């Protein structure tokens, strides 16, 4: 599998791109929420965090819609 990944023939499929976007989106959102808990700020979620969470949420959603596209090249 790793050998194939690093071969000159390997290319990402839409499915793999989708999975990556979902993982990044979900983990990113969880990370931002965890950061907010650890920081223990009184101000709650700030505009930068909100924008980042929105972007990550959109990425995860797009990822979900890409997964059914299977082996088509990304």
């Amino acid at each position, binding site marked *: 599998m790793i050998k194939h*990944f*690093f*071969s*000159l023939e*390997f*290319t*990402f499929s*839409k499915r793999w*791109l989708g999975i990556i976007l979902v993982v990044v989106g979900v983990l990113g959102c969880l990370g931002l929420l965890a950061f907010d808990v650890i920081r223990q700020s009184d101000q709650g979620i700030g*505009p*930068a965090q909100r*924008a980042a969470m929105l*972007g990550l949420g959109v990425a995860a959603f*797009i990822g979900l*819609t*890409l997964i*059914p*596209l*299977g082996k*088509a*090249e*990304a």
Partner: protein
Amino acid sequence: MQRALAFFHKVLIGIALIVMLFHLTVYIAYAANLIPFPFDYDQGEGFELYDTQLFSEFQTPYRDLEPYPYYASNYPPVFHLIAVPFAWLFGQQYWYGRLLGFLGTLITAYAIGYAVWRDGKHRIGRGNLIIGVLAGLAFLASNITYRQGPLLRQQMSMVMFETLAIVILTQAENLAFASWRKRRLFLIGFGMLILAGYTKQLAAYSAVAVLIWLFLRNPRRAIAWGTLFAAVGAGIFALLYITSDGQWWKQAIAANVNTIFWPQVEGLFRLWYGLHGFLIIPAALLCLYELYFERLSLYVIWFSVTLTLGGISSGTWGGGDSYFATSVAGLSLLSGVFFSRWLAGDFTFPPNYLSRVLGLLKPLAPLVTACALLIVPLLYIGYGRAVLKMPTTGVLFEPLANWWGLEPNALNGFYDSAGRIAGGYSDIGHFVTAQDYANAERITDYVRNSEKPVLSEEAGFSFRAGRDVVSNPTQLLNVWLRGQYDGTTLINQIDRQEFGYIILRAQFYPTPVLLAISRAYDTIEVIPMNGFEYIIKAPKSGQWSDTNYFVE
């Protein structure tokens, strides 16, 4: 019916071309007006010229800010190095730096037009030349390109190198085999990317886009090219670090890390959409099409990454609308490709869950393609109206402004459809007048006649008077905001009234410096220039030692 459609298409394309050529005329008029102006027009231009001077004398502009003359640059060197031969030939002049920026935008426009034409040629064996021309002109017509193009700044040169890199790398990828020609094009493309990065740091976003694209295509190639790219980039970085005794890191990298002001980001995104919406929607449709029905092109990834990261960065101190310039190149290119493909009926929908839904609309496909004949030129015409900006005075422009009912809403009787509502959209784009020249000379007289050095927020007056360039206020502020500037030497010099005069405009100096100026200097005159007020300050009476220019 087909004949009538083809006829209206030609008429509308003709109108779209006239609209875009009008924008080109305004742009050339603005460049012709601004390029000879021998003073700062956009605050900071003179410091770019001073960087060029230092390089032409084989000195580094990345220096310690604490001792006199309190000067350091925060920009990488490529733009200044390109201008060095001109400095050797013509001395310290603004015109060649502005000319370089202006020519850079023309090259970018050509690259965009060529990319649109070549996409059709590669795909169906026939490129759409007219759409290529319109796409290139659309880039030049953007308010953002127009305002930044003829400035002595490195922004548009960076966009030129970025665009060339993206177009060349796409060309290389489209070659069928791993030939020497393909590798050579990749080398040139990555070379352009390095030039872009060492023109302005913002090009890092384009590098991120290229590496993401290459990784999706083939991780092994991405790692190989990425390693080579990083090695060359790091080598240049190390060279700059060593030759500046570490100041390169402090001045050009660390000092440029600023916090983001989110209301400015939001305002600039709204403005960007308001101006370019007619082309953003087609560009976005091509992004979605490639995402679900085709392989993602470098164009789409480049546009998405530079728009997102550049747009967010526009909210930093020192950012602004110019940070959208790369995405304007991207959207001009993508919309051109979309229009070219739409007109050629060159969209196919491979079987998947989405194409099954879209398949219900298949009977309408001929109608949708026919609509392109009317909608494409209309979108360019609409875009032309959205980005309208022009002087409302002068032989050509005044009658047109009266005819169209345009009221000046910017400096020096200028009309700009962008208005002046978004923070970070600077007051430039207007033409300079004979009065501006005269007033600039009046300010210069203060510098020329002072026996002591003059602390000026702009370098142009010092160049004109043949005096020392003292301080770079924005860079002083950058390092002060990072807590890396003490300023005692400069503040003591101000308190001891060792400057003959102090010339302020935007008052960008760090707060302790401004407080020292208030303590020791009084305003003696305010001179308008380019729509801004230049405050001339002289030492407060009783402490003033230059008897020739004693002020009560």
